């Protein structure tokens, strides 16, 4: 494959993530009733060490919601958020004076993540003109390191380097932040690019 062609493929992928992420940010803003901003999508190949140094330390406690694309060959979405930020988001979603419990926070976070995943997908589906369905979300609270390696391996990504595909969302300046990851199965990106005609 020529260098130009692989650059084109990289650009195409980044653009898909940009469109999907933009769509998700819009839905998110409607949901919480405040503007939501997004960084330039992050699409990069990194070692575990580099991920833990540059993106998120392995010993950070995070809440993670996961949803799998149906069909067993595509991969999973993750929404990763700091527990304190999850708390703030839950307060935005629920009526004032709601008595907060861990269960209620987690359930709000699952709902919010579901909306992010679905709106990202909706945008991608329009690009490739093929239906894609994400499973109901599941959630856990654990160390970023425990989750990341396990999720990549569950998606049959056994390499020492990880292909990180990520959108960062934030609101109220940088007071609330969350990240959407897509962890692809080995052939998933290839399939996507073929469907885009690249």
């Amino acid at each position: 494959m020529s260098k130009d062609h692989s650059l084109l493929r990289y650009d195409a992928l980044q653009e898909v993530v940009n469109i999907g992420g933009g769509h998700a940010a819009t839905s998110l803003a409607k949901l919480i009733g405040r503007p939501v901003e997004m960084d330039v999508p992050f699409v990069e190949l990194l070692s575990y060490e580099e991920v833990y140094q540059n993106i998120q330390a392995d010993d950070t406690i995070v809440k993670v919601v996961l949803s799998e694309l149906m069909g067993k060959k595509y991969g999973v979405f993750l929404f990763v958020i700091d527990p304190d930020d999850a708390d703030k988001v839950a307060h935005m979603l629920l009526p004032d004076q709601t008595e907060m419990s861990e269960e209620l926070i987690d359930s709000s976070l699952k709902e919010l993540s579901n909306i992010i995943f679905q709106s990202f997908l909706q945008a991608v589906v329009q690009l490739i003109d093929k239906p894609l369905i994400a499973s109901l979300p599941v959630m856990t609270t654990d160390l970023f390191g425990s989750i990341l390696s396990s999720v990549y391996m569950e998606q049959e990504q056994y390499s020492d380097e990880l292909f990180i595909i990520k959108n960062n969302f934030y609101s109220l300046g940088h007071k609330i932040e969350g990240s959407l990851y897509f962890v692809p199965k080995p052939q998933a990106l290839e399939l996507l690019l073929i469907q885009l005609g690249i």
Partner: protein
Amino acid sequence: MSEQIKVGISDYKIATAPNQLVTIGLGSCIGIALFAPKAKMGALSHIMLPDSTSFNDISNWPKFADLALPKIVDELREKASEEELLVKIAGGASMFSFSTESPILQIGQRNIEAVKTCLEELKLKIISEHVGGKMGRSMFVDLDTFDVKVRMVNRDEFVL
């Protein structure tokens, strides 16, 4: 002064008392702590995968249980000049389990089985373990006492 020596993913380290060996964020991976009691020398291995046989590139051998354990056990036996080693293991979780998934497909379960088989072949017995479940773990190995602390999020610490 005692030092904390960190073992990354797909890596291993050998050290002696009074130092500590530490590995953070074992999800479906497994941490294997080996200890030579007379020399107070220990090894900590953080494996990712059960079996190397279906892989072409096995240059990073500490990643695979079947390659890592025989080599590390050999190295520790030689450095410590001791045959009898004590073993404690932790990890092998399934962080997100979909109810439709069979345990055969779960990498954590496969890692647990592979580690146990390898250790058996090396004639080593596991003296205590904390494996499976849905939670991640971090391991802190004290090379003076061979106490192994297993830390989890939102749960009590467990000492192996």
